[in-house]
């Protein structure tokens, strides 16, 4: 691209805000009643996060992985690609993230979710993780809060933004542990990709929404920034 410095984010915008939000309305109508299953799995995910343990971590990672795969196929590949030709690349990245999460869930190196004893400290890192996980699951309420109908709600597990935000929360909740047994390069590549894809997506979606003058443009980038800052914090010792 020549004279690349003259381009602004809005130069890459291909659709209007109206078209973008209608996409979720059409997506929700096409997937109905999958929303009920997504809400049920979100409840299970929260229960697993509270319960803690390695088995809970495996289940939670699998649920989130399913969300990435549902975002990759039905959303990016089948829906978003109708208005954005770059969606196929996003579909590939989301499928990769889903595969990485499934791989982590099924591997012997799977970290555990902390089993917190009553009265013990939650710790700042876990507090941020829990907040982001809840924010991702609660993301659908953003639509009516911002004056859009429920039919345009973005569901955790079915659409990319809430799935990415919730995943960052789950990754923060996981304890460092058995993955240390992996070779350094493999651990770095695996964990690096696991974190990089949701963080980069949060920036991309924030930029897209900003060019659409959408008030929620700040949410995903802020979540990513918060998650990255929280990675600098250590987990408190478990009971």
């Amino acid at each position, binding site marked *: 691209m*020549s*004279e690349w410095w*003259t381009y602004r984010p*809005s*130069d890459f*915008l*291909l*659709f*209007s805000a*109206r*078209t973008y939000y*209608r*996409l979720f309305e*059409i997506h929700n109508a096409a997937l109905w009643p999958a929303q009920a299953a997504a809400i049920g799995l979100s409840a299970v995910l929260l229960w697993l996060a509270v319960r803690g343990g390695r088995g809970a971590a495996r289940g939670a990672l699998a649920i989130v992985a399913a969300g990435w795969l549902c975002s990759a196929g039905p959303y990016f590949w089948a*829906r978003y690609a*109708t*208005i*954005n*030709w770059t969606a196929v690349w996003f579909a590939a990245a989301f499928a990769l993230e889903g595969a990485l999460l499934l791989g982590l869930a099924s591997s012997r190196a799977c970290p555990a979710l902390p089993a917190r004893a009553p009265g013990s400290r939650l710790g700042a890192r876990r507090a941020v993780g829990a907040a982001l996980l809840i924010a991702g699951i609660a993301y659908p309420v953003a639509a009516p809060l911002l004056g859009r109908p429920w039919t345009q709600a973005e569901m955790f597990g079915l659409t990319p933004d809430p799935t990415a935000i919730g995943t960052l929360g789950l990754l923060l909740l996981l304890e460092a542990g058995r993955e240390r047994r992996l070779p350094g390069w493999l651990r770095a590549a695996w964990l690096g990709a696991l974190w990089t894809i949701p963080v980069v997506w949060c920036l991309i979606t924030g930029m897209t929404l900003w060019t659409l003058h959408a008030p929620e443009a700040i949410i995903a980038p802020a979540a990513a920034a918060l998650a990255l800052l929280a990675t600098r914090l250590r987990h408190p010792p478990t009971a």
Partner: protein
Amino acid sequence: MPNDRATTRRTFLSGLAAAAIASLWPMRASAQAASAPGPGTRAIPSSGEALPLVGLGTWITFNVGDDAVARDACGDVMQAFFAAGGRMIDSSPMYGSSQAVVGHGLAKTGSTARVFAADKVWVAPGARGPAQIEASRRLWNVPRFDLLQVHNLLAWQEHLPTLLAMKAAGRLRYVGITTSEGRRHREIEQIMAAQPIDFVQVSYNVLDRDVEQRILPLARERGIAVIANRPFRQGDLIRQLQRHRLPAWAAEIDCDSWAQVALKFIVSHPAVTCAIPATTRVDHVRQNMGAARGRMPEAAMRQRIAAHVAAL
């Protein structure tokens, strides 16, 4: 939209006034715009074919994917565009589903024979151009394109020979190149000077006037038609202008909206063949087409418009 009867009366009176002073106007096309029942036209220099001064862009506005409701709404916009005398619709493979939506609208309105189909080739390497052009033609569902342009000069050295060969074989009527927002103007000038192109598409509006310095004079000198894109700066210009009251002098050029003032500023430049505003609204497309009618600003009024908008 304003009262139709009032608009008709004003258009009639302005037509009389325009006819009276037509001999004083520097632009024959502007005089035609005032006296003809349809929209004003300007001749494509390489052929003499008359083209309405206002066309229809599709960037962003027609990229609605599979949304059946939105597709029909775009078809309604096209219906109003054709009913108002419009002809040129401009699209590109870069614009997502816009080409398919244009094809849907053409079928819905039965306007395939009327449309001046302007599309682009936007792919590298150039060897992939013919396949992309054919895919675009199928989406539009037209027998052939009237105009194909090399989008943003991407691989233009490879695409231009292909397009010129298509024109020579009768499979294309006009060949052009495009850029936007002032990019690669030096290269645009070089191509305009050296290649037998019929059209050049550039960004031109009341605030973005760089092309007045070299490209528009060169287009007149070389007999190249000019399409003005981004006439409203993607809507930002109109949103900015609408915070201010429309000046009383807008009536002197038969404008009842800022959009018409902005469009008349563009199409009254003698080197400009047409402007291609994009919209999703029927009332807006009618308003835009209104800018191709009535009195056009002459040089002094153009300066007045530019100075007024710059000062806002």
